[in-house]
């Protein structure tokens, strides 16, 4: 069982969380500046690395924050987590 470091709540059992996938994909702009290819890649293409992976987790049974975790997909080692924005209070 993984232990996910929520940047707010601290380390918690991964059963409290929902995995939300690769953190490096970002939603293209809604306007014409984004190509069909951009949209296809956003929804379907994943780098799927074997090794360090930045990924999003949602603290579902917790503070309900989506945040980024750095985890190695080959070893499951977790090297850190980060808030998506700095606005929130510090975990202190």
């Amino acid at each position, binding site marked *: 069982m993984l232990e996910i470091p929520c940047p*707010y*709540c*601290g380390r*918690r*059992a991964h*059963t*409290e969380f929902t995995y939300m996938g690769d953190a490096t994909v970002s939603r293209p702009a809604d306007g014409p500046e984004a190509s069909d290819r951009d949209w296809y890649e956003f929804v379907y293409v994943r780098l799927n690395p074997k090794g360090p992976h930045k990924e999003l987790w949602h603290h*579902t*049974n*917790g*503070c*309900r*924050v989506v945040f980024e975790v750095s985890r190695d997909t080959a070893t499951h080692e977790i090297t850190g987590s980060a808030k998506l*924005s*700095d*606005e*929130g*209070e*510090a*975990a*202190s």
Partner: protein
Amino acid sequence: MPETSARRSALDGHYTEGPVAISQGAAAGVSLAERRDLALVQLDLKPGDAEGRKAAGALLGLELPATPGLSAANASGEGVALWTGPGRWLLGLPAGEGKASVTALAEALAGRHHAVIDLTQARTVVRASGPRLRDLLSKGVPIDLHPRVFPLGACAVTSLAHVTGVLHHAEEGVIDLFVMRSFGLHLWEWLHEAGEEYGLEVLPAITK
């Protein structure tokens, strides 16, 4: 209000006071009581809005904790604020004050992002205590409740008996358990079954 408008707790019909599965003369390992003495208000601010936090805190007579895992109480001890997410607090206020507080908070926070909801009837709250409380909760709570880690005043949003729950270390050795009302009876039954081996006692519901 007509007779029929009597409020019903989610535990209505399932609340039997007295000892449960305790052998004669033994002390209960865990005591349970429903808290019906609370109004619950959820307050959302923009995360990091220190001014908003101050304004709301001033109104409530306490400092809204900015730190995860903490709670704060006002001077009378009748108002408490539990940190439940960045920019989000669950406020426990004296019963009956929910709607008024929503209005007052909304006024105090006018002009800045906020959302205030009276969740009094959306939650079931059980006050649990006793020498085996930690053992019982450890069957369904995946966080560390050792007093070194979860001291007096600590609170946490976590899983509780497989549903989302808020735990608040309200008094020395006393933990308040908050779950969604639709799971209230589930929690109650779970506590009864999981607690059987420790001996349970159901105390009168707490009202004021």
